[in-house]
């Protein structure tokens, strides 16, 4: 049911093949709506999830809630905007790598406007000006290049991912340090992490209220959300007719 992505530029395709030969893990046969089939190491992943949740409940979540209580809303928004602005570089590059010049260009305009008028990215002046965040990343680029599905990995203390999305996760984590250089202080990394966790509180609260098996819920939501992002918010229409197969035939 998943429609194929638009044809990718030939040069990018050749570049991608070299990378995919190293990274591809026989995912071509893993099509289908049951994302549980991509979870080839459920024992490790579930243990990693449980450990992460325990630490999150005891340390990260309370710190994030305290941060939200202490820091005024505009300051908190400024911190989120600052780090998001740095990561616009990553998003813009990946827009171009996917052959989406308009999306890459929109992010470049965001970077220009928010870094100058928005005072080093503290204010998001680009969105009201018509330059919305495109939120591209290297994992989406690999998907556009042809690596559609990948094995599930729950990275301890970090969160859900796939083999395909691991490099992207690392790039996003180190982008601020890479851009600012050796002068980037360690405490800034700490603020980045706390702000990111605080920003995700609404999501995890929703999950905790709705999920009976938060591990399976997180995995399913992660794959579906990535599909949405890969297709830039306009994925092919899924009929969900596979769901009817195992219950219609009675």
């Amino acid at each position: 049911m998943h429609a194929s992505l638009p044809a990718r530029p030939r040069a990018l395709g050749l570049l991608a093949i070299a990378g995919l030969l190293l990274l591809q893990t026989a995912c071509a046969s893993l099509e289908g709506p049951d994302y549980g089939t991509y979870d080839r190491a459920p024992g490790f992943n579930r243990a990693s999830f449980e450990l992460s949740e325990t630490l999150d409940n005891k340390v990260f979540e309370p710190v994030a809630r305290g941060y939200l209580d202490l820091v005024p809303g505009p300051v908190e928004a400024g911190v989120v905007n600052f780090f998001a602005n740095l990561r616009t570089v990553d998003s813009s590059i990946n827009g171009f790598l996917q052959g989406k010049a308009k999306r890459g260009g929109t992010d470049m305009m965001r970077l220009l406007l928010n870094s100058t008028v928005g005072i080093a990215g503290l204010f998001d002046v680009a969105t009201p000006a018509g330059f919305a965040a495109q939120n591209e990343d290297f994992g989406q680029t690999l998907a556009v290049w042809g690596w559609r599905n990948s094995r599930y990995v729950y990275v301890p203390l970090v969160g859900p991912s796939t083999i395909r999305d691991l490099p992207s996760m690392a790039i996003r984590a180190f982008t601020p340090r890479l851009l600012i250089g050796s002068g980037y202080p360690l405490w800034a990394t700490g603020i980045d992490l706390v702000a990111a966790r605080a920003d995700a509180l609404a999501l995890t609260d929703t999950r905790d209220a709705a999920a009976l098996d938060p591990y399976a819920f997180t995995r399913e939501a992660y794959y579906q959300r990535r599909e949405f992002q890969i297709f830039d918010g306009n994925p092919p229409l899924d009929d969900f007719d596979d769901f009817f197969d195992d219950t219609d035939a009675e």
Partner: protein
Amino acid sequence: MKRLLPTHGARASRPRLSGWKALFGFLLWSFSYLGTAPGWAAADDVAASVERFHAVLIEAMQTEGFGQRKTLLDPAVAEFFDLGTVARISLGPTWRSLAEERRAAFVALIQRLIIATYADRFDSYSGQSFVQVETVAASTGPVVKTVLNRTNDEPVNLDYYFRSGKAFNVVADGVSDLSLRRADYAGIIRAAGYDGLVADIEASIAEFGD
């Protein structure tokens, strides 16, 4: 033997329409057909159904008290959702192993869960609004694409999947409610069986509104 098709003679005896009249007649027939074709009528019906459901959600957001919101949402959820399909798909193959009365009990349980979930999540109003974008066709039926606009947050795309005139799936920014439910329940059924799942859903409903 009775003829079902007219003979050449019968056809020749009918008055012949001029070209423009024939064209006009064809167009008139086409438009009247389009207006009454099941697909078009269904598209209008489901769009109106979504409109009514959204109006209830806005009213729920403006209503104080979890119990009052549940009372408000109860008939709307029953009218809007194909609860039998939601329950059946959520359970997957386990559905087939259930007797009729257990299936009916599970449908009622899902209804209570959906009402409690909506009453819990749609609990405050700060200028939110729903906008219908378009209705498109999927093999299972029409899909109504809408957007939930929020004042201090990014808009959310909400797609409603219909089958036989009722919604069976809501997809929010690409994440399917039915898929999540199905994946969520599969793990519980594997670990604790159907009865364990029912107990967990009951516990989940009891926690809402706390």
